[in-house]
């Protein structure tokens, strides 16, 4: 499918801008609202998120632990993902 070069350039710029915006913001998903001490602990573990805007989102589905999302990277420390890994290991055993 041929795309107009002008439109392609505009799309590229838009996506790059979105990525940069994503990188500026860090989303921390937790099953409850994190306390400032807990956020400090997380920043201590991952210092490169310090300069970014931190947003705490609550999601009870993760059961426990946290999921840290910045830019295109995701660090999944949730209990739900551990259970998913366990399920995957059952599949691999089979």
């Amino acid at each position: 499918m041929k795309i107009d070069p002008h439109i392609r350039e505009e799309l590229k710029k838009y996506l790059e801008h979105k990525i940069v915006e994503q990188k500026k913001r860090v989303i921390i998903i937790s099953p409850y609202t994190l306390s400032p001490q807990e956020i400090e602990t997380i920043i201590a573990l991952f210092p490169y998120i310090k300069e970014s805007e931190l947003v705490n989102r609550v999601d009870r589905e993760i059961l426990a632990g946290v999921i840290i999302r910045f830019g295109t990277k995701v660090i999944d420390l949730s209990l739900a993902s551990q259970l998913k890994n366990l399920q995957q290991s059952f599949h691999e055993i089979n």
Partner: protein
Amino acid sequence: MENLGVDAKLLIAQLLNFGLFYFIFNKFVAKPFLKFIHLEKVKDQERQKELERIKKREEELVLEEKKAKDMMRAEFTKIIEKAKREAQKVKEELIAQARKEAHEVEEKAKKQIQEEREEMHTAMKEKIAELSILIVKKGLGEFFTEEMQKEITQNILKNLSR
């Protein structure tokens, strides 16, 4: 002689006449005729001989024909027997081939059934694992209090820092 009414001259003339007649008849009629009769007799004999020869030949030909027919019959029977044997052989080969193919189909079907059974078994195990995890997830979701979630989260972060 004249008293008897016999004319000597006439008698002599008749005798001469008869003699002449006899001579002419013998020379020009009897002999050719006899010759002709003789020739016909010889021809007849030859014809008889020829006929006998032909009859003999005919008998020989009949015998030869019978012999040839017998040979043909024997040959024909031989060919039929050979064809029967070959047909039987082909029949046996076809039956063996069909049995082999049927066996192969049966084996293939068995293998397929076994594979499908294993696949089903695997899928079932995966489904059971999936359901188990789901049940655990749901259970934990309802069981966990906020304090428990905090404790676990702090444990996770503590372990990470190590």
